[in-house]
């Protein structure tokens, strides 16, 4: 299957630009100056289609095409990088000449590349932007709008957006790597604004993954998101001010896994650790979480938003254990950081596009399930909050401080879930927050497929997940 993926990309991406094995060899050979550890060509064409509904009608749609080639040459820890928005040979060779300037030494070499094809596919080559279907998509958004409005008369504004993209990449490297991938990605977002008296509140839901638009057109799929968005807005209409202070926090299953992404995920990326600037640097083997906690980064899940067949350096995707029974066991690596750290790449080399350099990035990051029933966990909380939905987070990987902002949360007293509270930021310290995990639920859930991770100005799609967790002490930033 992977060989047909490679063949298709060769046919659809490279052949129309007049690029074949000879041209790729020519460009790679230019990168082989003395002192260059490896050189790489990354060809890409990405088509994105988007439709947005507002005020009951689809008023605009967009179609965006980006294509180009990014060339890098790496000498020890230094990288020369250039890119061109044309796939034509002269532009490719110019970019190669600019990139190899990282080494001041002259020289030439010969490289032999062969396609990497012996890995399983996590998603198919479906192109969700091909084959028309615009009329059906527009109709879907209108149907969703009518459904949302039928759910609750207090719904004032409904925004629905549908995006579909098809990303074709080919990576050729002087280490012999040659791999192609075609990545479908679709996403549906539903946002509602509800008004009651003087109060106005929003609710949001959505999802997607690496499959065709048909998957989102199933009524049971979009109706679920619609009800969820309305329910959240309704909950927020009745929310009281959140408490302020240090308290027990129970995090719901699924999307609250953004905790793991921020608190430990970024700190376990290979670049920060090689440089010794992460709060986790030099701590492999140490206990950084309670024994109930095992956290993995897994790019091999079928059709998930963060999944990859091969990463952006042509390394087949993997499942990397980061924390095993509370002990820090591994980092996520791209080729450059793996080589400098004397370890193997883990399939985490990702880049936003040909115009950006790859670096170690997460795919789908989640905690494995524990032993406790979620209701049993809530029952143990005397005084705290239960947060089930979040807006996203941020981390300072050096100090380890991270935040994530709750968008749906409840007060918990004497083991009972109480009134809804307004959104509040939670702040903690990455290296010790998981040492405060008191209980881990049996209800592992992955998010619905809307995650975007930003690092050094580059955005990539990711997934998160976790079972219900009780954290015995986290600072909650409410007002009361």
């Amino acid at each position, binding site marked *: 299957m992977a060989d047909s993926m490679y063949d298709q990309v060769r046919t659809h991406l490279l052949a129309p630009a007049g690029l074949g094995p000879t041209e790729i060899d020519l460009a790679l050979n230019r990168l082989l100056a003395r002192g260059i550890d490896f050189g790489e060509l990354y060809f890409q064409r990405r088509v994105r289609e988007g439709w947005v509904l507002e005020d009951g*009608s*689809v*008023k*605009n*749609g*967009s*179609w*965006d*095409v980006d294509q180009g080639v990014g060339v890098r040459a790496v000498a*020890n*820890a*230094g*990288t*020369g*990088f*250039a890119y061109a*928005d*044309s796939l034509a040979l002269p532009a490719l060779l110019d970019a190669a000449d600019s*990139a190899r*300037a*990282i080494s001041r030494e002259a020289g030439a070499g010969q490289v032999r590349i062969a396609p990497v094809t012996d890995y399983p596919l996590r998603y198919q080559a479906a192109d969700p932007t091909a084959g028309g279907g*615009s009329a059906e998509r*527009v109709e879907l958004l209108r149907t969703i709008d009518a459904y949302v409005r039928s759910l609750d008369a207090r719904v004032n*504004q409904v925004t629905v957006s549908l995006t579909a993209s098809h990303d074709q990449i080919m990576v050729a490297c002087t280490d012999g790597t040659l791999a192609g991938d075609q990545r479908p990605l679709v996403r549906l977002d539903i946002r509602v*604004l509800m*008004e009651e008296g003087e*109060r*106005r*509140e*929003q609710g949001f839901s959505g999802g997607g993954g690496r499959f065709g638009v048909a998957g989102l057109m199933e009524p049971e799929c979009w109706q679920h998101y619609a009800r969820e968005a309305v329910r959240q807005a309704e909950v927020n209409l009745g929310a009281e001010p*959140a408490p*302020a*202070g*240090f308290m027990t926090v129970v995090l719901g299953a699924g999307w609250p896994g953004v905790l793991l992404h921020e608190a430990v995920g970024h700190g376990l990326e290979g670049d920060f650790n090689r440089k*010794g*600037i992460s709060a986790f640097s030099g701590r492999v083997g140490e206990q950084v979480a309670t024994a109930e906690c095992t956290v993995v980064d897994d790019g091999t899940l079928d059709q998930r938003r963060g999944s990859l067949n091969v990463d952006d350096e042509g390394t087949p995707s993997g499942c990397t254990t980061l924390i095993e029974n509370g002990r820090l066991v591994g980092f996520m690596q791209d080729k450059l950081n793996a080589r400098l750290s004397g370890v193997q790449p883990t399939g985490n080399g990702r880049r936003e596009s040909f115009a950006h*350099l790859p670096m170690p990035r997460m795919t789908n990051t989640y905690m494995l399930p524990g032993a406790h029933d979620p209701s049993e966990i809530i029952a143990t909380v005397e005084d705290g909050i239960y947060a089930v939905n979040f*807006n*996203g*987070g*941020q981390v*300072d990987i*050096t*100090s380890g401080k991270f*935040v*994530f*902002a709750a968008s749906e949360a409840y007060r918990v007293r004497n083991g009972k879930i109480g009134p809804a509270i*307004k*959104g*509040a*930021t*939670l*702040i903690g*310290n990455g290296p010790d927050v998981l040492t405060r995990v008191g209980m881990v639920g049996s209800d592992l859930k992955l998010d619905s497929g809307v995650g975007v991770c930003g690092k050094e100005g580059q955005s990539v799609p990711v997934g998160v997940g976790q079972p219900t967790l009780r954290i015995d002490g986290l*600072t*909650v*930033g*409410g*007002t*009361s």
Partner: protein
Amino acid sequence: MSRSELLEQPEREAELLAGIARRVLDRAASRGAEQAEVGASSSLNREAGVRLGEVEVLEEARDRGVRVTVYCRGCSGTASTGDLRPEIIDQTVDRALAIARHTQPDAAAGLAEAELMADDVPDLDLWYPRDVSMETLIERACAVEAAGRGADARITNSEGASVSAEASVSVYANSHGFVGSNRGTRYAQSCILIAGDESGMQRDYDWDARRRFDQLAAPDVTGREAARRTVRRLGARRIPTGRFPVLFVPEVARGLIGHLIGAVSGGQLYRRASFLLDAVGQQVLPEWASLIEAPRQPGGPASSAFDGDGVATRESALVADGQLLRYVLSTYSARRLGLTTTANAGGVRNMRLSGGQRSHEQLLEELGRGLIVTEVMGQGVNLVTGDYSRGAAGFWVENGEIAWPVEEITIAGQLRDMLANLRAAGTDHDERRSLQVPSLLVAEMTVAGQEA
């Protein structure tokens, strides 16, 4: 065009882009679009990054792009491409037209009225081309980082320093016959350092960006400032939960005023997603404060004679004596609200908060016992309700004097109250920014840290 050609003859690049724009508009018209608009841009960037005295990244970048929107019988469609070959440009126009066949009519869609187009496009003093060599950038980055690492023995590591030289040319044209062109240069340097002691590691940075390369801060100024900002965070701790006055330094005070601007922006208003609905004429800041937009300021960070719709920009107050005078509107959002555009398609340009008079020492004295916030984290800002809750770091102040660094706390409040009850402002505007806001003293916020 090559790098040196673009730097020496930006008019030629602008003419090339204008030619593409004409091609787009002609094709759109011949295929049935009643109106069309197109933006085309071309930019060059050369950047050197060093870490621990060694080259880490050398980058040569060339970005180009074209974005077209067509309007047919009240329906619109948008398409973009980074591939500027004529046949691809034509396909892109056809894509936009195909999309417009499926969208639904929108009475607010379409170009701004022809009489609003900028009829004069003065030179705004934004173009200072210089073909800075990669060697020069590398040397400068090394000098910045070395100054930072040498400034304090507690600087133990570095995320590196980088220096960049960027030049861009862009054209906006529409079927009224308007063609406007902008060009600008930007040179930037930054340095991120790590400090460490028995309390742990801290990271912070400093940067500078200018239109002219020879106006960039001296390398050692940026390096030393990065070091100063980093080491002062060492030993940070939490503080007890309570309610305190909070002094926002200019870089985070900008965010507060940014939320005010966001809440009075057309897109939020017509979606009713703002805590400042129908607020024109109301007091949104204290009486001593005004917000003036100067989009044609010579050499300004965001200067342009026309906005994203081609509409002529002009100096105008958003807030005078604390009172909101207008909204921030594009042609589209203005029509949605039954109002007239404020030439803010693409956002506000060179907005400055005036009226503050306090020195840093005076602000500290007025703060008395409370918090200085130097950094906020996370997305805890709800523009619909004005609820504000962020992670924060900064300094604790006792008796008007900085006592110790603070981290892992949250600050929370209600934006409408926080803004309307600002107690004082400084005069320390950050001239490098398009939104220039001095230090702001917020009367009181809930600060959460340890158990009280």
